[in-house]
């Protein structure tokens, strides 16, 4: 039973942050696409902006790994 809850906790850690990241990237991505249509020179900024929310899922992944390692 404990193993189940450990797995669920790790899954929640990664799923929650992945959803948050995807929501943020969807918003930033559509805005970036609109901005790039007007100003192509913003491409670097656009890529950076899109990459920024990925920190959330990366940290979620790390927490999930730590939960699994500690729990296991």
């Amino acid at each position, binding site marked *: 039973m404990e193993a189940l809850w450990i797995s669920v906790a790790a899954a929640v850690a990664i799923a929650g942050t992945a959803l948050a990241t995807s929501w943020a990237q969807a918003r930033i991505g559509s805005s970036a696409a609109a901005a790039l249509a007007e100003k192509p020179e913003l491409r670097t900024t656009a890529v950076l902006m899109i990459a920024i929310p990925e920190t959330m899922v*990366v940290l979620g*992944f*790390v927490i999930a790994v730590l939960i699994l390692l500690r729990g296991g």
Partner: protein
Amino acid sequence: MIIEMARVRLFGPRAALAPTIRALQDVGVVHLVDTPPRAGFEPYPADALERRRQKHLAHALDNVEAAISGLATLDAPIADRGGAMASEGKAAWRAARIAAEVAALAARERALVDERDALRAYEPLFADLEDVLAVKRTSIYLLRLHAATGIAALRGALEKAIGADHELRAHELANRDTVVLLLVPSARSDDIERYLATARVERAVLPAGLGTMPLGEALGRMRPRLREVERALVVLRDEARAIARRSGGELAAARHGFHDALDAMAAETHATVSRRVFSLEGWIPARDRGRLAGALAREVTVEDVARDEWHGEDAPVVLANPELFAPFEVLTSLLPLPRYGSVDPTPFVAVFFPMLFGVVVGDIGYGLAILAIALVTRRRAPKLAKIAVAVAVYTIAFGVLYGELFGDLGARLLGMHPLWFDRQEAVLAFLVLAIALGAVHLLLGLVVAAINRWRRDRREAIGRGLTAFLLVLIAISLLALFEQLPAVFVMPAVIAMLATFAVIVILEGLTALFDLMAILGHVLSYARVMALGMASVMLAVVANRMHGAFGSLALGIAFALVFHVVNFAITLFSPTIHVMRLHYVEFFGTFFEPGGGAYHPLRHWSPRATAT
């Protein structure tokens, strides 16, 4: 690195302004700026004669560019050769003549190409035409349908209108329209005319030049006319090549000459003049100071503008890095130039970008694949190829340390063992490595910022230095807490942390707290190195396990190969983006100061200068 610039002021007799500007073009190192006003001097006034000359030159240059681009479209490009231009007036007159000649050729070419394309559209008909035209007492109609499905309907309608006394030959054209040859006895032509008019069937339009002939005659002329047009196009392009051979050098020289003359006139507007003296100011790389003085006439004086008369942020920025680092300017050039007097991040990127990429991918097989790509692209994209070689070397090196060759294939087939740690097993060790790399990377950035700002802003420099020190103390405390250092370090490190933090708050205010949190967040952000690395190795391992998952060995190997290719593509893209982001957001955030202006020295025109 950002090379040292000097601001210089030139004085000379007013009459020597134009020769001085020509000399500056020859040297090609002075980035001119508007000369600040001073007593007795006024902005250089362009008189009506000069304005007329400028207009005349611009018009002549338009003619030259039109002639050159016209020749290029006629498959007769000219080589960019320098050389002396004839006098401005003669060169302008010749340019106008050649431009008119090329424009006439281009117009003829457009008409011929249009006619050729129109004739070629009917090429599918040509095979049918000979026997169709041989039939006597037959009326021919050429119809056009926009959908192939219309033929059945047309056939049905004709059956109803005139019975079986007709023949339809349909051909699909290149544009997917269908052209239909309708043959009917001449006696039924009135019925057909009536039907076509009431049914509103579209008649095919014949190419220009044939449209005025009777249809039968025009159809017969189509094939020979196509050959004529094609021959005429060959002759026309030969004429264009003859013009390019005859006048190419003249046009190229005129293009350089007119551009240079217009640039020189624009440069004059930066000058200020008194009744007898001109003054010009600009930036030059400090190392070229001697070259400049040697290139100017004796009556022109070059003096350095005192350092307290200019601001560092006004100076244009020239990056000059050793050959090993220079290709990485491609990556730093994606961001604005660093401000003059700040630090060029290129050398740091050259060291850390390939290293972090290697830590993420760390696979001998993928490293060799990247090396192969670098070798293939070395001629087409030499800078990117050099970056790829550096990336491949680190990828192979970390592949050896992790014992990975296409994931665990090396371990399974060749018995490879990791020299450092196995990424599949030692997840925590990999995480610690990633975060430690982040801490070192940001520590370096903070130290660079502290050293760079020491002269300009001691307070900020001390703040950056103390933040770096705080980072070290946090690392010591954590190492001691996790028993990697003796426990005796914990208390002194914590006390030093609190004291350092208090000093930082005094120096920078409460915002220092947010800065510190941001830097700690940035350190943790390097965990992505571990996350991506884990994903990369796990995908490779999954690819290797596929051969047993499909029942068929061949199918399994094929899927495994496809999976490796996909993983390799992801490997090329994702770590590049993330490692770039770690540099641009986390690392550059510690010391990078954007806002440098580009260096555009007055020099002789070249097509490359226009392209950039």
